[in-house]
């Protein structure tokens, strides 16, 4: 077993027994489900919208070269500097180079999972920069020195009491545990940072080929400020974020909001097409866009799972997943957790190290049903299992199935095995769940149904006779 797999199992065991954690997540997600369903219901046809979104993403991803070239030429035409990065390290290096050129000392960041993926904060801090996360949830997680718990709700596993203690300890400012007052503490602390940061860093939810823009979806206004005040703006996005046309956003913006947070539209949906243009009163002097591959082209080369690149990172599949809800976001130890994380992490970081995630699934299909762009998530989990087994067959498992096949194909042997089983099961009960139990992994937390006194075959034969 890979160390990642044993870590996962160990952590999952702790988390599933943590009833307090489970209750916090359940409460948060039950509220989410209520508003999300209300918003879905407001669509004249949520299902047609999903199909259209899936087809639009299909078109973009399956003609990615064409749309990327179009996006870049449109961006460059209005003075944006576009960079390409094959790896996460290259992306960090490009940003560090911008930092050096600008002699920057501080960076204000709005929420970006892609920057988590390339470990940007660590790289910037190592270079001696002050990096401040401005999204409230991300700010909280940065103070805790932990990665985000969820791709959309980074701090959903924390209570207001914990956040109050954190602010008291780290900022020396926490008048009460009211969410309102705590939010104002963060607002005050971060306002100063916007005004002084040298570089504003953002991610992007979409990029529009037709008009050469990136689109950022948010609620707090932190991305708006990040892209308004610092002299230099840098945006990092995966190459799969591109959409063909501006009008596609009329569909994707409300769908992202509905699936992501249960809103009809989030508070700010903003398209950026360049640095400050002539005649404009503010905005960055320089706008850099970094297009990141980082194994996305490998996923693209897998035609069977290519649609995993359609993902708009709404988090709906995490929210629907019974595994995620019980083991929690950090147990995955990946940038992207939940069903989509289990599907793509093996492509991003290696199949054999991360194949265990595809087994952490009940295959209920809740993720596939929740996905606004109709990614075939639970089938991809099965395909990962298949691919992992084909690539590196597990000797033990294969031998077991060979023995089973051998026995099951021989009626006489099978009859003996049944007798032995009926005889052996009471003995197994004596050691159930202990180290002596050969079926320990199963019986530790589950009951094995008792074998019936008589097999169906025996009963049938007697009945006939």
């Amino acid at each position: 077993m890979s160390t990642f797999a044993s870590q996962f199992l160990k952590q999952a065991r702790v988390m599933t027994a943590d009833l307090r954690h489970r209750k916090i997540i359940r409460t948060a997600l039950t509220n989410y489900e209520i508003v999300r369903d209300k918003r879905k219901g407001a669509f004249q046809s949520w299902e047609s919208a999903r199909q259209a979104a899936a087809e639009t993403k299909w078109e973009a991803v399956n003609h990615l070269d064409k749309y990327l070239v179009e996006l870049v030429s449109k961006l460059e035409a209005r003075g944006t500097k576009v960079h390409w990065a094959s790896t996460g390290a290259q992306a960090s290096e490009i940003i560090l180079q911008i930092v050096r050129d600008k002699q920057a000392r501080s960076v204000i960041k709005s929420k970006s999972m892609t920057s988590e993926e390339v470990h940007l904060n660590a790289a910037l801090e190592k270079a001696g920069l002050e990096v401040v996360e401005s999204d409230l949830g991300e700010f909280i997680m940065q103070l805790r020195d932990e990665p985000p718990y969820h791709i959309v709700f980074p701090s959903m596993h924390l209570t207001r009491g914990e956040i109050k203690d954190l602010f008291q300890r780290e900022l020396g400012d926490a008048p009460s545990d009211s969410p309102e007052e705590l939010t104002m503490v963060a607002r005050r602390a971060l306002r100063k940072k916007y005004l002084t940061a040298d570089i504003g860093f953002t991610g992007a939810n979409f990029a529009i080929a037709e008009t050469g823009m990136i689109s950022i979806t948010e609620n707090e206004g932190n991305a708006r400020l990040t892209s308004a005040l610092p002299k230099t703006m840098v945006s990092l996005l995966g190459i799969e974020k591109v959409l063909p046309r501006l009008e596609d956003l009329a569909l994707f913006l409300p769908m992202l909001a509905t699936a992501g947070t249960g809103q009809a539209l989030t508070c700010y949906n903003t398209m950026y097409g360049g640095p400050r243009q002539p005649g404009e009163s503010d905005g960055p002097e320089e706008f850099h866009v970094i297009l990141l591959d980082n194994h996305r082209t490998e996923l693209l080369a897998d035609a069977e799972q290519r649609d995993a690149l359609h993902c708009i990172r709404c988090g709906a599949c995490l929210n629907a997943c019974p595994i995620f809800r019980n083991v929690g976001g950090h147990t995955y130890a990946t940038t992207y957790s939940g069903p989509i994380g289990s599907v793509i992490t093996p492509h991003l970081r290696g199949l054999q190290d991360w194949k265990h995630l595809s087994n952490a699934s009940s295959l209920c299909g809740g993720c596939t049903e929740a996905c606004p762009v109709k990614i075939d998530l639970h089938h991809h989990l099965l395909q990962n299992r298949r691919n992992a087994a084909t690539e590196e067959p597990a000797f033990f498992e294969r031998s077991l199935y060979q023995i089973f096949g051998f026995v099951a194909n021989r009626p006489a042997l099978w009859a003996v095995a049944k007798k032995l089983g009926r005889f052996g099961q009471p003995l197994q009960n004596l050691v159930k769940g202990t180290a002596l139990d050969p079926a320990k992994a199963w019986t530790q937390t589950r009951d094995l149904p008792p074998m019936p006194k008589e097999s169906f075959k025996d009963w049938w034969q007697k009945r006939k006779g």
Partner: protein
Amino acid sequence: MKNEETVLSEREKILARVREALKIPAHVPGAHGTAPLPASAHSPAADARSWLPKVGDSFAEQLALFQSTAAELKAEVQMVASRDAVKAALAKMASDGNWKRIATHKGELTDFATADLGLPICRTEGGYDVQEMEACDAGITECDALVAQTGSVLVTSLSAGGRGLSVLPPHHVVIARREQLVADLPAAFALVQKKYAPHFPSMISFITGPSRTGDIERILVLGAHGPKKLTILCF
């Protein structure tokens, strides 16, 4: 900066990998095994209007929807009878909110509405001092459109005094004409295309209610980083 050649080559490497990967076609969504769709000029999203939340056809219905949606989002909508009434409404807002200083941009409506307020004004055209704008009690802007379907205000860096004005002061006041109301998001994007293409403003933003967060126990708090209050003053 990296020299030109490395930049180019990374671009070419990535594009080459993309082209190589795409040699094997992927199935169309919902139709396993069928041939790939051709790249088309027609967007499946072009029919969005028939699936998105419904909007009535008449102006009265659309206005009512805009008002109720905005109210649900905790934005304030003030409908006034005439252009002149805007002045009085703004003056009342200023005295109720005890405004000491406002920020605004050059514009037919903003100039008219703020002319007699008698308050110091931080103007954005040609650049402004950020600290000064931060200290203002309200940012007063025009807009490109109001969207009935979502209760949104559409602003751009050209129509609303840049990027900062609509998010930096704690109260954002939008002055709009009734005729600026459009039915839905597809109509709003069509308007952006018609009004600006190909010289789009560097920022185009849909503002849907005042700034908010739910990051602490998913409880709604207004004024996370942007304005706590959003008022749409419409005549």
